[in-house]
């Protein structure tokens, strides 16, 4: 097997297993109350981390670029009670404009 296919197979197996673990092994059962309480905090903590890594993340660096204009626009849109779809489109358009104007 070539290197590429080995990499594809191994990463595929790991990722499929990660995604399937919960639903396949624990599916349909309620988690212990303690865990449910902990997982209530997973969504905000993880979402915040995804915002940070995707808004200012670079190759092991903090990179400030046009993405911030988009994220700022999304915040304004939400504050104006715009629906999610509008906020996301506005973020992309604002970032594209910022890049077109300021390179």
């Amino acid at each position, binding site marked *: 097997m070539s290197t590429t296919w080995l*990499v594809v197979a191994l990463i595929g197996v790991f*990722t499929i297993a990660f995604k399937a673990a919960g639903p396949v092994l624990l599916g*349909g059962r309620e988690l212990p109350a303690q865990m449910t309480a*902990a997982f209530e905090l997973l969504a905000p903590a993880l979402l915040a981390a995804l915002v940070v890594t995707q808004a200012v993340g670079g190759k*092991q660096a*903090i990179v400030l670029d046009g*993405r911030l204009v988009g*994220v700022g626009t999304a915040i304004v849109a939400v504050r104006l009670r715009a629906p*999610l779809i509008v906020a996301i489109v506005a973020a992309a358009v604002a970032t594209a404009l910022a890049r077109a104007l300021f390179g």
Partner: protein
Amino acid sequence: MKRVSPLLPASATFGVAYGVLAVTAGMGVFAPIVMSATTFAGAAQFAAASVIRDGGSVLAAVAAAVLLNARYLAMSVAIAPAFQGSRLRRFFESQMLVDESWAISQVGGGRIDRRMLVGAGLFLFPCWVGGTALGVFGGDVLGDPKRLGLDAAFPALFLVLLITLTVSRRAIVAAVAGGVIALALLPIAPAGMPVIAASAVCLAGLRRR
């Protein structure tokens, strides 16, 4: 599926970008498409293709991707109660778990709407895999996702959902802690670590009770 619609062109365009990168990296034509269909996780695929392009080892490529995807293990356990039916059905439905489908399907209190998650994944999947095929065979047909501002669509989605979901004091504290941890680790830790470390914040909630 109104909520997922703005993400579909973004997903497809990044799929194209991945296809182009994978071909340049020497992954051939079919391996990238198979990878998009099986791994179905953008960041890990970009990381693996970069390692292959730079002549890195199998271990380096796999380690980078596993680190990036380890967050799915935490998400997977957290969403488990919502999955019903046969084991086989739960297996296939669980494969529709990606950051975007997970984020969109949050209904508050750490719970998700399984139908929304699977539905969003079913829309994102063909865009991602189709985009990859387009990039592999057609090259850069949709333009640079960055020039189109599409790289801002994902953090915008996560931020909007964060704002709408984070209402309780505990949740706000968790969000701030998660964000600060991720920001602090970004320049020093390998890709994937900042997000895993931030999700460890929820362990503090486990202790508290």
